[in-house]
């Protein structure tokens, strides 16, 4: 089915590959600056407290310290949704909250100075559990949010945004059902996307090119242009904000929430007149940056014998920790994604966002949808079990098909214009061996002594593939070299190389002729960055249009030279000719004599398409030890057209880490529920998978041409993590013959489900679990 392209679909080396393998890549911390200072944050040891006084004299007196800033020394910057969250406040709201900022000649001196800032706190009672936070008399985090409940809706998503899923009539739906399941489930283990490179930034406050005040940032996240917009909004209108995005050592969404470190560095730079670098230590990264939001569903589902879902009704509680920037948007997108995965006519799901005294929740791959579905599918499983429905059949039947539609993040209805994914799902099942291995609900595939094999399946789809606007220029210089102007930053997906690749394809040139501008907001047009699943359709879409525009403009110049209409021309390898007379050719250089061609491309949002990923997993559970081993994963997807096979394989294998499948097996953030301190905020205690523990992964990739894209492609990388966790829960339940309802499936939970251990050793956690309604 693949098209005969010159580059598209073929493995081509990453443009930054040579730099990466030689150590020449310049990540933020590798850049050299004259007179650079190092900034650190003084953080609160208390989860909830009023700051009575701060004495920074000791810190200021330390040799090498250049600035100590507290709330009184800085403007009252606020951001977040709603915009009430202060950069430095009178009150601290989690262990690790920022209290003061220090700049010094070295990081060592700055950290030493941080220990010399004397802070007097009035400690307040704190609340860490989402349900307890809503109880009467619970500690209140913000005056603005009585009951610790945040407003829904995100103005960024348009006038109206999705604040609930409501269609049809759930009473009618429930009355049609053959079985009604009432259930609770949570995905609330708060895994951390944990990119290898922690958050970091350099800021330099000074005069810009025109003499106006200008602050320049060098960032390590994935969205320089978005950061320019956000920082512009925070810092005020009388200032130019310029952002450089170089190579980013992983983000997975999380580093989009970098306004605080950026402001810290900017203010310290303004105060000292020198560039300032802020680098979070790994402990700060794990303890004071963002986690996944928690998600708890309490719903009723109506289901028919044939797998039709007749109604879904109930409450969705989302924990955002101490503040929100994007949680409302995650709720809006998550609601839409639930509708894409489940063709149900009658919905009434009411989300509620609650804040607590713990680290903020933020963006992670799967943006809202993973959080919702990891709680939803285990409840649906109960209905499937009652009706003896194979989950693969259920997912095939219920995933969106042409002719269906859904409400998306802007609360608008979209008629689905995409393809059916059924054949791809069937092929995935065949490669996995689903038919042979599926023995029914709560039944292991095989048993050998204490070891039992179980299988599970999950599915995810996302209309973020066409999210937001993107713009690009493609410039052809007089010597024939091609420069793509895009604010696309490389964060691991290889999309910068793909940007060059699609341009070489449109203009039919060698790949080496095409280069990309640095992701510098000053020289590039509007482009928010590769988040959601927008890289392939949106960002490459704008670049492709810019290349096509450049191509037509080049033809207009060449047409008189060839004596025919521009529309009759063709080009390859720097020559232009009329299709009717290919022998008479004009070289690009002739057409480009003393001339630059500039093509412009713009992508308008399109939410009428979805991608799809189905993950099949096979686990082995030891009923003696409770240990779970992930043995095999099959990811099945249809990408329309592969752009780069190796890049795609890398993205799909990413299903394990970055708070993905492993968040169902061992990844979790463990909170000391008496102090609010994270107990495993380091890379030894926060578990991650090593190369000797990798399961077999097979990726089944279909290429059914998508109707919309110049090369018929659609992005899928972001959602690689999303279908897996609930599939693991299903597989583990089938293996041991008892329901597991809580993530991650630790040995203790397995043994408890088997009745082999009681709750005695784990009183606190059992207590918390009961409160949360997670039946573990």
């Amino acid at each position: 089915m693949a098209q005969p392209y010159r580059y598209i679909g073929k493995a081509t080396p990453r443009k930054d590959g040579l730099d990466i393998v030689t150590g020449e890549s310049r990540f933020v911390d590798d850049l050299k600056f004259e007179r650079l200072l190092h900034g650190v944050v003084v953080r609160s040891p208390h989860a909830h407290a009023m700051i009575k006084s701060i004495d920074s004299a000791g810190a200021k007196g330390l040799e090498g310290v250049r600035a100590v800033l507290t709330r009184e020394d800085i403007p009252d910057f606020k951001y977040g949704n709603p915009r009430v969250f202060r950069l430095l406040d009178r009150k601290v709201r989690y262990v690790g909250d920022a209290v003061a900022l220090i700049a010094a000649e070295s990081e060592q001196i700055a950290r030493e100075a941080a220990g010399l800032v004397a802070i007097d706190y009035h400690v307040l009672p704190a609340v860490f559990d989402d349900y307890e936070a809503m109880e009467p008399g619970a500690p209140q985090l913000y005056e603005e949010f009585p009951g610790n409940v945040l407003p829904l809706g995100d103005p960024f998503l348009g006038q109206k945004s999705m604040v609930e899923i409501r269609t049809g009539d759930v009473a009618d739906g429930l009355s049609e059902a053959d079985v009604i399941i009432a259930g609770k489930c949570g995905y609330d283990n708060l895994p951390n996307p944990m990119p290898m490179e922690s958050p970091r930034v350099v800021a330099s406050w000074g005069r810009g090119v025109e003499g106006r005040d200008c602050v320049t940032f060098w960032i390590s996240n994935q969205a320089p242009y978005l950061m320019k917009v956000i920082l512009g909004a925070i810092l005020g209108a009388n200032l130019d904000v310029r952002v450089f995005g170089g190579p980013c050592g992983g983000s997975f969404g999380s580093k989009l929430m970098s306004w605080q470190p950026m402001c810290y560095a900017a203010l310290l730079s303004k105060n000292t007149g020198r560039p300032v670098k802020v680098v979070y230590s790994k402990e700060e990264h794990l303890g004071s940056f963002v986690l996944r939001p928690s998600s708890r569903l309490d719903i009723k589902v109506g289901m028919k014998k044939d797998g039709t879902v007749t109604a879904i009704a109930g409450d969705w509680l989302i924990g955002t920790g101490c503040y929100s920037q994007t949680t409302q948007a995650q709720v809006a997108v998550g609601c839409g994604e639930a509708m894409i995965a489940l063709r149900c006519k009658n919905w009434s799901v009411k989300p509620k966002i609650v804040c607590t005294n713990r680290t903020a929740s933020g963006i992670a791959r799967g943006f809202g949808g993973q959080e919702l579905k990891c709680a939803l599918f285990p409840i649906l499983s109960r209905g499937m079990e009652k009706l003896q429905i194979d989950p693969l059949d259920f997912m095939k039947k219920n995933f969106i098909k042409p002719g269906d539609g859904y409400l998306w993040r802007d609360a608008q209805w979209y008629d689905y214009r995409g393809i059916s994914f059924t054949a791809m799902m069937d092929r995935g099942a065949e490669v996995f061996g689903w038919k042979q291995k599926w023995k029914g609900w709560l039944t292991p595939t095989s048993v050998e002594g204490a070891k039992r094999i179980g299988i599970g399946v999950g599915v995810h789809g996302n209309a973020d593939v066409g999210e937001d606007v993107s713009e690009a220029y493609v410039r052809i210089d007089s010597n024939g070299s091609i420069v793509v102007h895009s604010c696309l930053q490389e964060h691991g997906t290889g999309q910068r190389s793909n940007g060059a690749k699609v341009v070489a394809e449109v203009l039919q040139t060698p790949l080496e002729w095409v280069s990309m501008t640095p992701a510098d907001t000053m020289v590039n047009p509007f482009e928010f960055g590769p988040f959601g699943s927008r890289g392939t359709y949106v960002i490459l879409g704008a670049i492709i249009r810019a290349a096509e525009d450049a191509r037509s403009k080049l033809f207009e110049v060449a047409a008189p030279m060839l004596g025919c209409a521009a529309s009759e021309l063709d080009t390859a390898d720097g020559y232009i000719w009329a299709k009717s007379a290919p022998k008479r050719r004009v070289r690009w250089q002739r057409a480009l004599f003393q001339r630059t061609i500039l093509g412009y491309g713009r992508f308008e949002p399109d939410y009428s398409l979805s991608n799809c990923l189905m993950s099949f997993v096979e686990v082995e559970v030891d009923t003696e030890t409770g240990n779970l081993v992930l043995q095999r994963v099959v990811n099945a997807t249809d990408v329309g057209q592969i752009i780069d096979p190796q890049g795609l394989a890398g993205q799909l294998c990413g299903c394990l880490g970055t708070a993905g499948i492993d968040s169902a097996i061992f990844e979790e953030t463990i909170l000391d529920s008496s102090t609010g301190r994270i107990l495993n905020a380091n890379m030894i205690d926060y578990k991650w998978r090593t190369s000797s523990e990798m399961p077999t992964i097979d990726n089944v990739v279909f290429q059914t041409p998508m109707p919309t894209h110049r090369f018929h492609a659609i992005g899928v990388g972001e959602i690689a993590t999303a279908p897996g966790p609930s599939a693991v829960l299903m597989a583990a339940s089938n293996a041991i013959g008892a329901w597991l309802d809580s993530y991650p499936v630790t040995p203790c939970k397995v043994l408890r489900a088997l009745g082999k251990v009681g709750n005695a050793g784990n009183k606190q956690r059992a207590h918390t679990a009961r409160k949360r309604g997670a039946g573990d």
Partner: protein
Amino acid sequence: MSRENIESRNEPVAGEKLIELRVNSQVYVLRVGRGPGELDPAHTLAFTLRETLGLTGTKVSCDKGACGGCTVLREAEAVLSCMLLTIECGGKEITTIEGLKDAKTGALDPLQQSFIDHSAFQCGYCTPGMIMSSKALLTANPSPAEEEIKEALSGNFCRCISQYQVVEAVKAVSGKKG
């Protein structure tokens, strides 16, 4: 501080303590002290490589010996440069990712080329450490079995999950001279 300044400081003044560090076949003489460009006894090898010598190819992620990102070679052995004090590294040849290319021809080490050919990275942050661990393995065992490759790389964190492609890249050059 420029490389020349560091190198030229090889005539000890009375009472001065100097450490001779050999990195990528170059000799650096560092004065022990607390001033700029000097070697503080508390400096880790990772810090010295990156901050004093400007060899930023070596990456620091956890700074606590957990992630393998800072792996370099001490003689032929893979070591975590964030866990070694520079003052203990005198007299031993240290090789970093910058030193893997052929010094004379500038040609890439076959392992580096294989990483490019297999796109054995996503964000690339773990890659220098991955390559150095692989290099140590191949030096000790030029034809490792797949399990041996995985074992040798099990101390190298990669959050993007590029390990599958890394193993393929290492396999492709194993059994060959390099």
